[in-house]
C-alpha cells in the first residue's frame, strides 16, 4: 500500500494537481510516526511511510493546511474521513483546497499498546501473515495482529470511507457489530458509588496537559474556554478534584454531537485515561434519546445539540427514569 500511495503522491505532485502532501513520516523506531507535510518527491522518498503504526488522525491538520496557498493531498483512513466531514460541516476546512485520497485501514497498533502486552525494548517490527514479529533488545517476540490492535481499533465502527476524491485499495465495510458501547454499558450497570470510584481513579491521574483537547478534531475553536483566564478555570492546574471533573465534563460536552468517536483523545492521553468513554456516553445517549446519529457521516445534517423536536424527552428521564 505504501508504494501505491507514494507513486500516487508523486504523480499528483508532478502533474500539478496538488502542491503538498499530508501524510506520515517515519521516525527513529518503527512506531514513532509523525504527521508531516511533504513538499517534494525527495521529501517523500526520505520519510513517507504508511503501515500499521500510522494511527494519527490527520484531518485536524487540514484546518491549517487548507488555508495555505495551493492544494494539499491528504491521505485519510476511514475513521479520519468522519472527522474530515465534520470539519467541513463546521466550515473549518476549505474543501476545494484538499484532495482526499482514501486509504484502507486494517486497524492500527502503537508502541504503548505493544508495551502493554509485555513487549520490552522494541527495536523493529514486521508483519507476517496474521502476526507481528517484533525485534526487541531482549529477543524476538510474536504477537497476533488482533492482539496488537489498539483499544479503539478493536471497536472500529467502520472501515468504509465517507468521503474521498479518490480511493486506493479496496473499500472496506461498515462494522455494525462493533460493541463499542459495551464498556459504557458496563459502567451504567454499576452503582453510582462504584461509578464514582471508577471515575475518580481515572480522572485523578489527569495532569492537565491538554493533549486530549489539542489533538481532538472536534476541538477546533480559535480560543478555547479553558484558555480564557476569566473563565475561572485553572487551565493547567490539577488543583482540585472538582477541576478535573469540570475539565473533562466540559471537554466532552463541547464535542457532544460532533465527536466522531475517532479515539484520538484516549490514544494521546499520557496517563491512559479512557476519555473515549465520556464521549461514547454522549453518543449513546444521543442515539437513545434523539435517534441514531453518527457525526461526520454527512456534511448537511444538524448536530443533535443544535437541533430539537417538540416531543424530545424531558430531563426528568435521568432522575426519574423512563417517561418518553
Amino acid at each position: 500500500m505504501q508504494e501505491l500511495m507514494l507513486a500516487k503522491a508523486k504523480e499528483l505532485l508532478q502533474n500539478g494537481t496538488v502542491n503538498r502532501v499530508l501524510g506520515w513520516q517515519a521516525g527513529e523506531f518503527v512506531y514513532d510516526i509523525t504527521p508531516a507535510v511533504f513538499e517534494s518527491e525527495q521529501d517523500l522518498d526520505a520519510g513517507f511511510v504508511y503501515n500499521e503504526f500510522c494511527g494519527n488522525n490527520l484531518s485536524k491538520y487540514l484546518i491549517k493546511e487548507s488555508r495555505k496557498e495551493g492544494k494539499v493531498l491528504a491521505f485519510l483512513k476511514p475513521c479520519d474521513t468522519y472527522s474530515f466531514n465534520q470539519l467541513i460541516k463546521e466550515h473549518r476546512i476549505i474543501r476545494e483546497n484538499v484532495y482526499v485520497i482514501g486509504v484502507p485501514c486494517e486497524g492500527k497498533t502503537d508502541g504503548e499498546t505493544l508495551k502493554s502486552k509485555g513487549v520490552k525494548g522494541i527495536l523493529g517490527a514486521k508483519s507476517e501473515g496474521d502476526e507481528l514479529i517484533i525485534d526487541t533488545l531482549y529477543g524476538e517476540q510474536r504477537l497476533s495482529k488482533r492482539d496488537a490492535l489498539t483499544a479503539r481499533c478493536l471497536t472500529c465502527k467502520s472501515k468504509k470511507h465517507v468521503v474521498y476524491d479518490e480511493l486506493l485499495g479496496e473499500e472496506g465495510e461498515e462494522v455494525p457489530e462493533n460493541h463499542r458501547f459495551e464498556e459504557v454499558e458496563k459502567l451504567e450497570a454499576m452503582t453510582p458509588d462504584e461509578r464514582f470510584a471508577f471515575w475518580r481513579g481515572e480522572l485523578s491521574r489527569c495532569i492537565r496537559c491538554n493533549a486530549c483537547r489539542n489533538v481532538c478534531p472536534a476541538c477546533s475553536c480559535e480560543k478555547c474556554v479553558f484558555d480564557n483566564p476569566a473563565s475561572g478555570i485553572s487551565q493547567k492546574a490539577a488543583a482540585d478534584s472538582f477541576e478535573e471533573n469540570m475539565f473533562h465534563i466540559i471537554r466532552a460536552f463541547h464535542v457532544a454531537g460532533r465527536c466522531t468517536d475517532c479515539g484520538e483523545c484516549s490514544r494521546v492521553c499520557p496517563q491512559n485515561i479512557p476519555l473515549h468513554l465520556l464521549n461514547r456516553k454522549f453518543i449513546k445517549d444521543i442515539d437513545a434519546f434523539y435517534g441514531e446519529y453518527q457525526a461526520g457521516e454527512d456534511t448537511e445534517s444538524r448536530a443533535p445539540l443544535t437541533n430539537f423536536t417538540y416531543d424530545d424527552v424531558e430531563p426528568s428521564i435521568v432522575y426519574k427514569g423512563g417517561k418518553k
Partner: protein
Amino acid sequence: MQDVNQFKPKIVAFCCNWCSYAGADLAGTNRLQYPADVKIIRVPCSCRVNPMFILRAFQRGADGVILCGCHPGDCHYTTGNYYARRRMTLLFSMLDYLGIEKQRTRVEWVSAAEGAKFAATMNEFVAAVTQLGPNKRLEDLRCKN
C-alpha cells in the same frame, strides 16, 4: 425544639426571566412558603444556562441546582427551552454516569402563572436534596473552610 445541626441544603435555582422568575415572584406575592436557602439567579432564558453554570454552582457550595424555564412551546424566544432541554438531559445523564447523585439536579417548567407550582417544586426539591445530605462529589475543597 429544632435541631440546630440539621442539614439545610443550599439550592441554586436558575430562573428564566419571562416565566419562572415571574412565577417565583407570584409565589412571593401570594405568600407561598418555600425554603429561604433557595437562591434564585435570573437568566434571560433557560438556554442561557450552559453546563458550566451548573457545575460552577456546585463548586461554589450548592447542594442542588434546579433550572426553571417556560413550558416547551411558550419560550419568549420561541425555541430556547427546547435547546436547554436537550442540553440538560445530556448533562444530567453524564453527571449520573460519573457517579454524581442524579437527584441533585433538576429541570422544571414553571410559567408566570404557576406561583404555587414554583413553591411546591422548591419544597419538594429541597426535601429531596436534604435527604441526600451535603454535596461531596462535586465540591471544591478550596472553597470550604
